[in-house]
Every structure is written in structure tokens, then in C-alpha cells.
């Protein structure tokens, strides 16, 4: 090879690698980490990206150089040099990739084992997934249940998952941790949130018709705020006032993910507007209380026109206790009459 051709090959390689590096650097690839685990994944990500860019630049350089320099004239019927191989080269491009992927494997295994290692004073949260709602319960706080995941910052959290119906998957992009929830077995994932804020909880395993609305929030709070919330909530659920208890049930079961209810500050439009419940009951020709109860326990008994069947989970009849159901029905009736 002439020296000039090596230079131009290198030149193309540097340009190709530069373009790829620019794409890698200019675009916001990984979300800003909000957990120690995500923080450990980031360097691994960049380690792999650098290897990828080098390999990509090499391939593109050789290819572009060949395309521009070895193009045959239209009437050129001659053949190229009959080179059949080169044992040295073949050994090199077997060994170097082997070493590169081995290094990626070792790095990954280290990150994985550190991410799975629990810290001291672990907070345990039991997560139940069902079509199409999450519920988080805190065994340390007498089984307090919430529809949003609230976590204290800088504390090791072990989420243990069960699924009621089909497979779901728990993902918070900012935590970079994901875990499928599988009916019949329990699974778990370890997260150490390190940034206060509100992050989306997304179901990433296709779980049925409402899969794209199976979302909630993970709220990372200061330890003091978290303790305060934990105790305040425990009181609200056991409150004798049905409105306070009903509001807690509404919130904990994520009704607001799909429905509008002004009193609860919910404004989703996947299901019918609950502020119009009296009118809906009239349309169905059923007394209001009976209508509301039936719509929760057996949602397919009457489906409002314009809304698909089978999206509202039919599992609430079993999931809610009788007190919870009564409180929720009373709360919905009183709120919708106000609204």
C-alpha cells in the first residue's frame, strides 16, 4: 500500500468516526440518571459506544475508500488480483474482536453484580401489577398501599413484584432498571434513587389493550418528607370519613390514570368522565349507586358508547375489600354530584 492511500484511508476513517461520535455526543441518549444503578450503567454505555464507533469508522472507511478507489470503468472486463486470504490478518480479526467483547463482558458482569448488591437498611416495597394498574405496598408501614411509588432518596430499595393476570414489566427510564412481573412467581429488582424528583413508571411488556396507559409515577423524596407521607397515608386509609378513605382508594388504584374526576385532580380521557356519572347512569337506565358499583366490579356489564370493551380491568371486584369498595362508590357519587 502506498503512503498516500494509507493517509486517505485514515482520513475517511477519522471523518466517519467523527460523524458517529458527533451523533453519540450531540443527542441526549440516556436519560439523566436518578439512581446509583443508572450511574454505573452510564460509563459501561460509553465504553461500549467508543468500541462501536471505532469498529464502525473502520468498516465505513474501508468501504468508502474501496468504492471511490476501486471502481471499475464501465468497459473494464478485467479481474482483480486473485488474493485468497491472509492467515495473519484472519487471526488478527478473530482475536481483537474476541478481546473487545470479552472486555465488554467483564465490565458488564462487574456492573451487574454491583447493581444487584443491596445496601444497608433496605426499604422493601411489594409491587402488584395487574391490567392496567400498579400498586405499591409498604410492609414496614402496616401494608400501606399506594398507586404511585414514593421512595426516599439515597436508600437501597428492593422492589418485589407479583402479577395478578399477565406479564407486565416495571421500568423507570431514569433509574435504568427494569423487571418483568410474572404471574405465578415473584421477581425483584434493586434500586438506589439518588435524585429527588418525579419520574415516569412505564409498563414495557405488552399486557393487553390498555398497555400504553399502564403508567404511574415514581416520586423520590427527601427521607423526612418520605416518613411524613408514609405516616399521613396510613392514617387517611383508616379514616372514618368515607370521602377521605374513598379518595385514597381512588388514588391508590390509579383510577385517575384513565378517568377524569375534578375532585381528585384527574383529567385522563381513556375511560368515561367520572364527573358525568349521574348522566351516564341515566343513559344506562340504572340507579346511580348500583351503576357505579356495577361499573367497578363488572365493567363489561354496561360499556359507554364510544369506549372499547375489556380495557377497564375486571379485577377490582376482587382486588378491593368491601370497605374500600363502599368508600370508593360513596366518594365517586359525592364528587360527581359536586362536579
Amino acid at each position, binding site marked *: 500500500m502506498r503512503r498516500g492511500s494509507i493517509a486517505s484511508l485514515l482520513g475517511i476513517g477519522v471523518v466517519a468516526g467523527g460523524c458517529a461520535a458527533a451523533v453519540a455526543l450531540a443527542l441526549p441518549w440516556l436519560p439523566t440518571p436518578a439512581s446509583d444503578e443508572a450511574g454505573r450503567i452510564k460509563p459501561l454505555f460509553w465504553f461500549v459506544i467508543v468500541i462501536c464507533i471505532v469498529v464502525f469508522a473502520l468498516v465505513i472507511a474501508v468501504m468508502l475508500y474501496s468504492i471511490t478507489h476501486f471502481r471499475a470503468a464501465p468497459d473494464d472486463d478485467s479481474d482483480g488480483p486473485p488474493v485468497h486470504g491472509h492467515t495473519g490478518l484472519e487471526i488478527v480479526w478473530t482475536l481483537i*474482536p474476541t478481546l473487545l467483547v470479552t472486555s465488554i463482558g467483564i465490565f458488564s458482569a462487574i456492573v451487574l453484580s454491583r447493581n444487584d448488591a443491596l445496601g444497608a437498611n433496605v426499604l422493601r416495597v411489594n409491587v402488584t401489577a395487574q391490567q392496567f394498574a400498579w400498586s405499591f405496598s409498604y410492609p414496614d408501614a402496616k401494608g400501606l398501599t399506594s398507586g404511585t411509588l414514593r421512595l426516599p432518596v439515597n436508600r437501597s430499595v428492593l422492589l418485589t413484584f407479583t402479577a395478578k393476570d399477565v*406479564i407486565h414489566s416495571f421500568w423507570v427510564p431514569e433509574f435504568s432498571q427494569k423487571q418483568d412481573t410474572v404471574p405465578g412467581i415473584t421477581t425483584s429488582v434493586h434500586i438506589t434513587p439518588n435524585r429527588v424528583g418525579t419520574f415516569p413508571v412505564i409498563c414495557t411488556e405488552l399486557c393487553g389493550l390498555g398497555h400504553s396507559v399502564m403508567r404511574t409515577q415514581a416520586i423520590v423524596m427527601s427521607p423526612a418528607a418520605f416518613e411524613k407521607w408514609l405516616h399521613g397515608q396510613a392514617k387517611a386509609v383508616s379514616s372514618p370519613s368515607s370521602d377521605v378513605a374513598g379518595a385514597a382508594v381512588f388514588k391508590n388504584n390509579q383510577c385517575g390514570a384513565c378517568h377524569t374526576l375534578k375532585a381528585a385532580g384527574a383529567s385522563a380521557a381513556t375511560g368515561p368522565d367520572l364527573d358525568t356519572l349521574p348522566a351516564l347512569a341515566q343513559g344506562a337506565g340504572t340507579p346511580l349507586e348500583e351503576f357505579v358499583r356495577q361499573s367497578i366490579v363488572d365493567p363489561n356489564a354496561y360499556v359507554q358508547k364510544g369506549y372499547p370493551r375489556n380495557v377497564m380491568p375486571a379485577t377490582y371486584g376482587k382486588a378491593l375489600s368491601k370497605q374500600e369498595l363502599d368508600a370508593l362508590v360513596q366518594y365517586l357519587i359525592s364528587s360527581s354530584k359536586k362536579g
Partner: protein
Amino acid sequence: MTATTVDHEVGPRSSGARHYLLHAGWIRALWMTALFGAFGFGLVVLLRWWGDWQPVLNWTPLVLVSVLVCAPLGFLAGLGTFDYWAAYAIGSPTRPDDHSSHGATSWKDYFKVNTDHKVIGIQYLVTTVVFFILGGMLALLVRAELAKPGTQYFDPQTYNGLFSVHASLMIFLFVIPAFAGLANFAVPLMLGAADMAFPRLNALSFWLLPIAGIMMLSSFVVPGGAFACGWTGYVPLCSTHQPLGAVFFNQGVQWAGASSIMTALNFLVTIITMRAPGMTFWRMPLLVWANFTTSLLVVVATPFIAGSQFFSMFDHVMHTAFFDPGNGGYALGYQHIFWFYSHPAVYIMMLPGFGIVSEVIAVFSRKPIFGYRLMALSLMAIVVLGFSVWAHHMFVSGMASYLRVPMMITTLLIAVPTGIKIFSWLATIWEGKLHFNTPMLFALGFLSMFVIGGLSGVMLGAVPIDIHVSDTYFIVAHIHYVLFGGSVFTIFAGMYYWFPKMTGRMYNERLGKLHFWLVFVGFNLTFFPMHLVGMEGMPRRVADYAPKFANLNMFISLASFGLGASTIVFLYNMITSWRSGPIAPSNPWRGMTLEWQVSSPPPIFNFDEIPQVVGSPYEYGVPGAQHAILAPARSKEIEEVTVP
């Protein structure tokens, strides 16, 4: 057709003695489909009535047995795929050298049971292109819905059905059988054989395909809607939580899978036993090597998906509990069995493409394949390693966590043989005499796009990164870079490359190049941004998504419509060139492999005399080198008459 047809006697089926309703063909297929369907219906009703299972008219088992099992068998029998075997079985006189259903003289012959591997190859390709277009249209509907956040056009059942059927058609009815079609045409020619080892089995394999495709598509019109659980069919969503449409998927996969297995067996026997004298394994073209290794994968792996779909269907229809956790089943068991097929399936969908690219690059670079033996050995390495990586699809599934690191290591190692292939192709074009005809453009396009898909695959192999991007649009981007940038580009390369040999006419080079550039640009604009939205937090298989992804999704949707439109150029080129393109010479690309040494299209039995292979198929630039010695063919004379 030619003088060669006269050499072989006309078989008993053309005697015309039978009533027209009894002739093998579409009329008989019609009434036999109905008859078999009615039989299945009656059988279920009878058994349910006899066993006093109420209600007697339970539609799920009725539709399964009558429409999805019996009626297709009736169709196949009516069309005549079983005629020879049936005649043999009942003791009627048969002639093993009956060639009455061999070769095609008019377009009508393509709609009959034909035992000619060249006709079957074209039947495969035309059928798969039809399903490619249908599957592509479904994808465009998905993109239309995704152009804006919120739901616009489709209810959730229909939307989930759209992407599920899209993937199923593209995988089971396009990529896998399109490769089988190209190989069906090329492999026997390249081996110097007159046909496949089992021509009647070959015909049956083809006719199973339209059944599978129509089954998957028709699930849209059954009550309850299409199967809406993704092409992976994860249980229990796809077993106990789905309408009747899920059974159409379970059963469609069985027909397509049976077709795959039969074809693979056919290839294995053909390649092992029917190589021309002198064609040692180390003299086989890499396309043959690629189909040999692919067929090994198919025969070992495909029974696993068949099993997984049977179990899932039994759970759905017969209330067994293989995967039903409520009754002691194990939901993850499905995933292990499914991926034990479906990861090797990734290589089933890629290795034949490697073979095509090796042929195209050697011919259009005018150089021998660099490191031929290592190229063949790396195919074998992929086969072996391919069976040890399935659980990398399950890093977040909840399977035993100790499985993750070993599966990561095998997954990363499989990049090594793949890398060897990429570097060897680059070394092949290095200092060659490159001719940029359409097949070469698609081969080089494949090379650059597959590198991106391969590298994102290495990222996915690293468990902690995989945990972050599992089930997001990053996965969607990755699989489209390997299955579209990889497989589909090579299928296009193969179709343009063998078009002159198949049809006897040249395609329009300008339109071919236009097609390549439209696909190349449209493909990248469509799929590259998906890496970004996935990494940032957009899950896959959703109709609705966070508003922050709205702009990128609108961009992706617009690009996808452009990509879809490029197919019109391809179709126009193929159809007009097939009808009225310039007559192709026998060897337009100056290739050395055997298929280019016979006329275009080849004579009905390929070679007048079986050729003698004397050297490697890629000796470009070696003075006086020969791959094979062919007897001066009678078909040459005919060629001289038809080609002015």
C-alpha cells in the same frame, strides 16, 4: 418448452380420462376444502354431543379443527399435493420418474402443484413479495397511528393486531420463505443437480405458505379481532387472555413452520447427496454453505416453536395448564421454549443473506472471496453458538439470575464469527474491480447497515444496558437494522442478482439503482431515530406515548411513508422487466458458479449432462481457472435461436 420435455413421458394425470371435478386443481381444491372443513365441523359436534359437553356448538374448537386444520388439508389434497403419495399408498400404479408436473410453459403453471425447483422458487418469491407488501401496509398503518401521541385511528385491539400481524407476516411469510425461494431456485443449479432431492415434498412445502399467511391475515375478521399479543405470543396474555384470533396465530405458525422444516430437510439431503462429481464441501459456493447451515438450524430449532404454540393453544382451547400459573403452569417456560427457536431463527433469517452477499460481492468485485474456509467455518460457528444464547431475550424476564452472565458471554462471542464475515467481505472488495450494479449496491448497503445492527446487538448483549433498553424502541430499531438492513437488503440483492436467470430478461438498472437509494435513505431516516426514542424512554408496542416524543415520531412516520413508497419502484421494475425487459444472456454478470453456465432461464432439467466440478467457485483473476466442465449443451443451440 424445449426438446427436453419430449424426452420425458407425459404422466397419467394428464390423460384427461377423469371428470373435471376430480382433476387435481383449483376446482377440486374448492370442494375438497369445503368437504374437509365440514368433516372437521361434524367431528367436533359429534364428539361434543357424544361426550355431552355443553355447549355443543363451542366456536373455538369448531373453528380450530374445521377451519384451521381440516380445511387447509382439504385444500392441499384438492390441489394435488398428495396425489402421488396417495396413489402409491392405495396401490395404484405410479411411476417414480413421472415428470408431468415439472416445468412451466405459461403463467397458469405457477398456480398448480409444480415439482420443478425453479418454478417453486419463483412461486415462493412472488408469494412472499405479496406478503411483504401486505405486511408493509400494516406497518404503515401502525406508523399512521404513531404519528401523533394519543389514539387517532384504531381501537387498542386493532392497533395491537396491526403490529402483531405485521411482524408475523414479515418473519414467517416474507424473510424466511423469501430466502427459501431464492435458495430453491439457486442451490440445485449451483450444485450441478437436476432438481431438489424431494421435488414433491418441495411442492407441498410451498403450498403450506399461502395457507399460513391467509390464516394470520384473516384473524382480523374473526369476532374479537386479530391476535393482539405481539409476534412473540407471550403467555398468559396470548393463551387465556386473547380472543379466537390468537388460535389463528398459533396455527398459522404451525403451517409456516411445517413448510420450513420440510424445505430444510430437502436442502440438507440435496446438498449432502446431490453434489455434482468433484463438488466437495470445500468447493461449494458460500450460498450453498449458508443454506446448509440454515437448514441445520431449521430442523433442530423449528420443532421448538411448534411445541410452544401447541402448548399455548392447548391452554387456550383445551384449558390445559402448561403455562397457566393459576393451575400450576410456568409462564416463563413458554419464553424459554419460544426463544430456543426464535433466537436461532434470527440466524435462519440472516445466514442465507450472508450467502447471497458472498456471491454478489465476489462477482461484482471480480475477486475470490477472502478467506473462503473461514467464511464457511464461521457459518458453522454461528450455528453452534446460536443455540446457546436464547436467554439474552430474557434478561429482565425474571428467569434464574445466574443464567444471565453465561448467556451474555455467548451472546457477545457470537459477534466474533459475524465480525470475521464482515472483515472478509471488506477484504474481498479491497483492490477489486468494483461494478456497482443494483445487486452490489444492495450488498454494500447491507454491509454498512448490518454493522450498525450488529453493534447495537453487542450493546444489547451487555446485560446492564439490555436491562435499560429491553422492550423499548431501541429494540425495534435494532431488529429492523438486522432484519431490514440485514435480511431485506440481501433479499433484494438476491432478487436483482438472479432476476435474469429466473426470467430470462434483464431488469432496468436505472430503476434498480433508484430503488436502492430510496430504500437506503428511507430506511435510515425511519429506523435510526428509533434508537434515540427508545433509549430515552419510549416502550415498544404502544399506541400512545409521552408528548416529548411527538416530533421524532412524526418524523419517523413521514420517513416510513417514503420508505413504503419506494416499493412501488421495485414492483414496477420487476413487473415491466419480466414482461418486456431486454433478453438476458446466460451469464450477464460473468459469474463462475454453475447456474450462470446454463441458459437463462435454465433448461427444464438444468443440465443436459451432470457437470464435472474441478475447482473453487470464486477463482476470479486466476488465469485459466475453471469451476466446472460442462458438456456442450443442447440448450445452447436453442439459446442461439432465441437470442439474436
